[in-house]
């Protein structure tokens, strides 16, 4: 899906746990997430910390969307 949306000129950040798949499917901006059952947050941290983590990840995603890239880029910590 990523590629097809990006074809319209819309920047897409792919936030996902399995980075190799994201690379395979051709995402250009990739932000790794926490775990498959809870990609954006970590319920073990409690609600507040989990949400902070989510906010941090989404901010990273927005940063990626504002970053010029010339090919597939994984935005690690």
């Amino acid at each position: 899906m990523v590629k097809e949306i990006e074809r319209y000129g819309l920047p897409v950040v792919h936030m996902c746990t399995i980075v190799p798949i994201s690379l395979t499917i051709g995402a250009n901006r990739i932000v790794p997430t926490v775990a498959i059952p809870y990609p954006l947050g970590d319920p073990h941290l409690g609600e507040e910390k989990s949400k902070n983590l989510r906010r941090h990840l989404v901010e990273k995603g927005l940063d990626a969307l504002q970053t010029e890239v010339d090919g597939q880029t994984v935005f690690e910590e």
Partner: protein
Amino acid sequence: MNKLIVTNNSLVFEKYCNHCGVIYLKDAGYLDVLYAVRDRIHQSYVLLTHPLAGSLKPNQTPYKSIIITRGEAGVDTDSVVLIENSIAAAQKFLRDRNTPSWSEKILGDFRTVDLSLIENAMQKRSFN
């Protein structure tokens, strides 16, 4: 290492149900077996055999048996990529043409071939 067979082939189930874990999906289709395996890969299982083992096309034989094992915590990305590619390949064939409704004789032959693919792999040791 504990092997777990996911199969819709009664011969495989009968032969191995007392040896190791067998998830027997009676009456399930070829793709259903792939889906069932895919779901388990997301629950930390790892593929031990190739999902498309056998050169019979996915719209030819209705039987499929795949051996998996529980891996370490987390998801084995090689397994995820392999099962997804296999699902895509199987869907490609099934989109063009469905598996015919075979006679019981032919179904029996397909079960035999599927069992033979698994028998070999069951004799193997693996250290994952």
